[in-house]
Every structure is written in C-alpha cells, then in structure tokens.
C-alpha cells in the first residue's frame, strides 16, 4: 500500500512521517481518503465473494453448496456490508476526501481531526459488525432491512450487528457536517458557487442527506435493540405496537440513503464526460440544481417501499406521485450528459467507458424504477427478483461503475503512475457483459414471479438462474483483471504527470502526486471547471 513513489516530494513523503501510524493518525485529507478507499474496497471484495457464493447456491434448485440458514445469513451480510460498509461511505469517504478539498482550492477539509475520527468510527462500527458474525447466535439472518417482528425474535446476533451500523451512522453524519462546512467556508478566491465542480455539488447535496437522514436510522436501530433487549413492544402488535411503523422509520433513512449512494456517482460522471469530450458540461446549472432537487424530493418518497404493506391507499397515491416527481431531475441529468457528447472530441479511454456504461446501466435502473413507482405494476414485482435486478442496475451498474471510473480517473493522480490501457478495456468489457447477464436475468425472473430472498425455487425458474450465475463469473473475472491491472499500474506502471486527461478542475493544476499542502500558494480561480479554452490544456 505504501510503495516508493517516483516524485521526490509529495504527500507520500514530504512530511517526513512514514510507517503505519503516520497513516492511521494522519489528518491529511489525502491520506484519510486512501485509508477510506482501501477499507471500503476490502469490504467490497468480501461482499463480492459472498454474492458469488449466493449465486452458486442459486445455480440449481434445491441445496447446492449450503443450507437455508447459511443462505439467509449470507444475503444479509452481503447486503449489510455492501450498503453500510462499501457504497454509503465509499464516495464521500474515499473520493470526496481525496479530491473535493483540492477541487475547491483548499488545503484540507474544515475539521481535519474530525475527519480522522470519522474514519475511526467507521472502522469501529465495521469491527463490531464483523464481530457480530462470529459471536452470539451467529450472523444475522434478517436481510439488511432488519424488518420486525422477525428481527426482534430471531436468535441470531442482530443486536450487535445493528449496534455496529448505529456507530457507522455517526461516521457518516460527521463526514457530512465536515463537507458542508468545508464547501461553504474553504472555497478559494474566485471559486463561486457557479464555478464549483459538479462532483463537489453532488457531495454537497449528499452531505445534507447524510446529516438530516442518518439520525433517523440511528433512532430506528436503537429501537430494534430496545425491542430485543428490553421487550419494549413498540413494534409488536400484540402489545399495541406496530410493525409498519418500523418500516416507515427504516425507509425514511434508507430511501434517501440510496441518494447518498448515487448522487456522488452522478458527480463523478459529470466530471469524466466533459473531460473526455473536451467540451463544457451541457447545462451546468441544471445538473447542479437537479442534485439538490433529488436530495430534497428524494427525502419524501420512502413510502414506495411499502405499497403492499397495508398502508392506506391515500399514502400510496401521494408516495407514487412523489416518486415520479423524483424521476424528472434524474432524466434531466441523463439528457444533459448525452448532449455534452455532441460535437465533442471523444476519447474512449477506461474512465470514459465506465462513464458511458453508467449512462446505459443507470438508465435501465432508472426506467425499471418507473415500473416500481407505478402503483399497479409495483404490486406484481414488489419483493421479487425484479427489485434485486433493478437495485443492482442502479447501485452496481450506476454507483459501482462510477466508482470504477473514478478509480481509473483519479487514482493515477495520487500515485503518479498509471495502469495499462488495453487490459483496462478488456476488464471493462467483461464487467459490462457479465453485469448485464447477471442482473437482466434477475429482472426477468421477477417478472415471472420469483420472489426475492428465496433459497430454493420451482423448476420453472431454473434456466434463468443458471444464466445469472454464469454471468456472475464473467463479472468476477472482469473485476479481478481490473484490480490487478489498476494496482500493478499504480505501483509499477508508466509515470503519470501533468494533466494527461486534459481536465480543467483544480486538481489537474497542481503537482502529481500532490504535496501535503496541495497548493504552493493560495489559488485564485479565474475560469469555470469545464472551461477547456484558454487554460493551456493540451
């Protein structure tokens, strides 16, 4: 993780502090960004392996490699790790920390020590969750949604796992606070709100969601623990409680959390597409505004997870309406990204391929979301494999592919070396093909009526399940190739200096890798983030 870097002086060595403690106690946003990056990547890979095991189990009807209880624990842990340990902290923690302060012309975030504390809270929460898997009644088997009354009754180690998620929530809130303050207070001279890179805008919108929504998750999870330990009966209808109240509380956070996962990904795409088209992003103000609009309106649509729950028809009317309202700013973004390509000079290098495939996969995820938002059609596909497919199109095909794009786009900047292009393109091809086979089959299975979280299934669902599993192997091969090529390149590859992509945002104006202080002198911003003319960019 800490190789010798080619540039004589950079944040890797210019403070003279090396060794593990100089990293895990560093307050430098770039070192914290890399700490986050490697932590979330590690958990991502663990959860990928769990996902592959789930697919192998579902390869054929009946028992394939594990029993029902193991299967239930595995999909629960897969979901908990992917959601709470990878994709929620992933963008703000890793790339937000690495890039955002430089993009606004700051030397660091507003509260560097709080930033380090956020990472430690994250690791503490992660440690508690991992401990929960191996102690008490064994790994939780409730699904990542922890629905009561099952989660209040099961003998598995739900309380400890939920407590770990509770702790991680604080990490997320503190990162959000830190970023909002940083973006308000530490912008360089000339960096007005209309010159903020769109990645920063997306992080800003995300940060508000983190601050406002996460406390509700904390309260909800604390209530689950109280239900289990103290028998409060808040969610137990036999004692005047209400299981549906839990679902409302859970989704009041967890739907906005989807925007924590996708908004920064949209920000990454808004950076990559203009740079690799050498054209200003089309409709800057509309994209920035739509991020804020999605964050705001997205807080009011949680009820669409509950159309079959028995909640009132009036509630369904309102939540279905608001869900369609949220679709509009997402559609605007897609059209604006496509328009950015028009009359550009398009280079299909790895980051751009990930960005363009994001467009396609996110569109499929978004459009299938319309099926789920309409009341009549949601009833049929709710709680089926269709939802699993849809969710993975949005979060893996969307956020995940954007994360891979960001890795290829920004990591060379911080290592001063780059990956080889051809293997990266091959890896992308495998990932893209494998991805579509895996998850498209799931959506078809859902349309045919196969429910989700099914350990076993009727013979009629067998062929598509087998195809989906085979697709997951392609996906896995592509992922391994991607990682091997990327990290081999970062450690031993061709030197990466200057501004090879031709970006106009501030991170491309400073030394590669950046020095600890980022800027030699206070930067003065004189042009917009996508103003490629007159900036001396090749």
């Amino acid at each position, binding site marked *: 993780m800490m190789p010798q870097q080619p540039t004589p002086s950079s944040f890797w060595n210019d403070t003279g502090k090396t060794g593990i403690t100089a990293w895990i106690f560093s307050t430098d946003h770039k070192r914290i960004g890399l700490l986050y990056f490697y932590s979330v990547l590690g958990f991502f890979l663990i959860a990928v392996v769990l996902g592959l095991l789930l697919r192998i189990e579902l390869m054929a009807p009946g028992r394939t490699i594990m029993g*029902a*209880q193991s299967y*239930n624990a595995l999909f629960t842990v897969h979901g908990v790790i992917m959601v709470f340990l990878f994709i929620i902290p992933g963008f703000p923690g890793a790339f937000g920390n690495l890039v955002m302060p430089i993009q606004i012309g700051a030397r660091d975030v507003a509260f560097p020590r709080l930033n380090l504390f956020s990472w430690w809270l994250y690791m503490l929460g992660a440690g508690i969750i991992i401990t929960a898997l191996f102690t008490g009644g064994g790994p939780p*088997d409730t*699904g990542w949604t922890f*629905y009561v009354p*099952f989660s209040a009754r*099961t*003998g598995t180690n739900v309380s400890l796992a939920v407590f770990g998620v509770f702790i991680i929530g604080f990490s997320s809130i503190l990162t959000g606070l830190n970023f909002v303050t940083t973006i308000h207070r530490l912008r360089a001279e000339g960096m007005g709100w209309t010159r903020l890179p769109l990645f920063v805008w997306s992080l800003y919108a995300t940060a508000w969601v983190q601050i406002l929504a996460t406390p509700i998750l904390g309260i909800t999870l604390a209530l689950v623990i109280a239900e289990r330990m103290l028998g409060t009966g808040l969610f137990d*209808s*036999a004692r005047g409680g*209400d*299981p549906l109240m839990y679902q409302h509380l859970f989704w009041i956070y967890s739907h906005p959390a989807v925007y924590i996962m996708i908004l920064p990904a949209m920000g990454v795409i808004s950076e990559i597409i203009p740079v690799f088209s050498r*054209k*200003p*992003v*089309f*409709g*800057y103000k*509309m994209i920035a505004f739509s991020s804020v609009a999605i964050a705001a309106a997205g807080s009011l649509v949680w009820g669409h997870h509950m159309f*079959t*729950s*028995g909640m009132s*028809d009036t509630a*369904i009317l309102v939540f279905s*309406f608001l*869900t*369609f309202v949220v*679709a*509009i700013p997402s*559609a*605007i973004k897609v*059209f604006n990204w*496509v328009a950015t390509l*028009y*009359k550009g*000079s*398009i*280079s299909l290098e790895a980051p751009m391929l990930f960005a*363009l495939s994001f467009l*396609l996969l996110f*569109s*499929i995820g978004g*459009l299938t979301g*319309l*099926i789920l938002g*309409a*009341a*009549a*059609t949601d*009833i*049929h596909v709710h*709680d089926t494999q269709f939802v699993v497919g849809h969710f993975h199109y949005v979060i893996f095909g969307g956020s995940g592919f954007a994360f891979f794009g960001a890795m290829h786009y920004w990591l060379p900047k911080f290592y001063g070396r780059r990956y080889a292009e051809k293997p990266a393109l091959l890896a992308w091809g495998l990932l893209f093909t494998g991805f579509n086979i895996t998850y498209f089959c799931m959506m078809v299975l859902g349309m*045919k*009526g196969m*429910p*989700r979280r*099914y*350990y076993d299934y009727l013979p009629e669902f067998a062929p598509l399940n087998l195809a989906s599993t085979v697709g997951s192997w392609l996906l896995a091969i592509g992922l391994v190739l991607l990682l091997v090529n990327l990290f081999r390149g970062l450690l031993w590859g061709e030197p990466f200096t200057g501004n090879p992509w031709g970006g106009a945002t501030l991170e491309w104006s400073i030394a590669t890798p950046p020095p600890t202080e980022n800027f030699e002198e206070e930067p003065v911003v004189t042009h917009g983030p996508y103003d*490629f003319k007159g900036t001396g960019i090749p």
Partner: protein
Amino acid sequence: MNPALLTTTDAVDPVFKFIFGACILLLGGITATVLWFAFRYRRSRAPEPTSQVADNIWLETIWIVLPSILVMAMFWYGWAGYLTLREVPKNALPVTATARMWSWNFTYANGRTSPKLVVPVGKPVVVDLVSSDILHGFFLPAFRVKRDVVPGMKNHAWFVADKAGSYDLFCSQYCGKGHSAMITTVEALPEAEFIAWLVQPEEGQPTKHDGAKLAKEKGCLACHSLDGSRAVGPTFKGLYGKKQTVLQDGKPLTVMVNDAYLRESIRFPNAKLVEGFQPIMPTVSDLKDDEIEALVDFIEEVK
C-alpha cells in the same frame, strides 16, 4: 364466465405494457444517441471539439417538460390500475388465509379448511390475510396480486381465476429459514366441482384425524423433522418417552415427554421450551382438541 368481469391481470398488464413500451423507446433513443455521438465525434475523427456550447434553454425546457408529462401519465395510469386491485367485487367469496412460519391454511365460511386455496372459476374471491406470527406476503404471480400479511392488522386481496387450473402461491415477504418453502397453490375448479368440494367432509372427519397429514398441513414438519435431524425445532423422531431438559420461565427443568407435555407444548409452545432452541414456535390457534390428540398420537408413533 361473466364477460363484463375485469380480472386483476386485465387491470395490471396494460400498465406494464405502457410503461415498458415507453421505457424501451427512451432507452433505445438514449443508447443510439450515445453510440452515434461516440462514433461520429471520436477523437481520431474529430481531433478538436467543434462546439463549446454550454447550454440551450429551449432544449432543456423541452426535456424537462416532455418527461414530466410522460411520467405523470405513467403515475395516473398506474394509480387507476391499482384502484381495481383494491375494489373488491360485491359478490366476492370470502376466504381467510392464515400464514405462519412456514405454511398457509385457508378457512372457508362453512368452516372447511384446506392447505391449498381452492376457488371457483369465474367468481371473485376476497382473501382476508391473518398472520399467526410475523410478516408474510400473499403473492399470486398469475393474478398480479400481492399483499403483506401483517400480525395484528386486517389486510385483504382479491382476484378472480378466469380459467380452471393450478396457480403458484408464494410467500413474498421474507420470514426466515423456511421462507422459500412457504409455497402452495391456487386450485381453480369449475363452480359445480368447487361447491361439491366445499361441502364434502374433510377426509377422516369427524371421527378420526390423520395425525401425519395434520402435521404436514399445519406446518409442523417445516421445523420438526421426522428423521432425527436437527432443524429449527427438535425432531419428532424418538421424542415420545424421552427425558428432556426444558426451560420454564428461564429455569432448567427435566420433564418426561408424554401426552400431557406434548398437549401443553402445542397449545403454549413457550411454556416449557426445549433447551437450545429459540422461542419462535407460533401458537396454532385453529387446532381443535381432537386434532391435537391426533397430532400427539402421531408424534408418539415416530420412532
């Protein structure tokens, strides 16, 4: 059947067609445009961008207004279809579905019970959904009908089978280890056959119950094995006559498994809980006394 009758499938499928149709057009358009631009303006062919246009208020207005109209049409059409799912026809036949971990049981107005949902063809059926333990989901893919079964809450769903046949019935709301095994079928019979089925006495009634059949139908065997393997609950094999350590109010106690203990444990599953197992067995409230006796006799015979 009644030609004016609108089935739930008839109400939902046009909405699917409309939204999927619009989505395919949009996706095709977006994909084709991206591919065309990526090809037409590739750097080897267009080494320099030929435009630096950064916005166009009219174009953006168009692609805000048109999608807004489109999604509002989807919303309204979806809502109208949903209303059909909620408007139970007046002449609908009432059936009560009882869901438990991990089996279904259906009770008809005349007291007839069945592990399968037997319905008459062409006559609407309204199913009242009752849970005896945790959340379950009543899902009929063929009829596009789904409704959660929530403890302590009155939910219902209706549908009508317009053809005779057997249709899948799944539990759609995750409910633990046996979730994917909590499946049964809807059996749609011509009306005359259905009425004959409804009034015929249940097999073995009223003198003697078949304990083995009851154990299967009431869901006992989802958790209690017959072959000695440990599942969610203790196995029935060799259970009768065994000395067993149980927890009464959290205190360990040794009991002999006899008729009285089994009777008590079926009525009040958590009164004396076998050590090492979770207190998750539901109370099976619809069991009659003679049915419990049949179950006890059955367990005694599993050696």
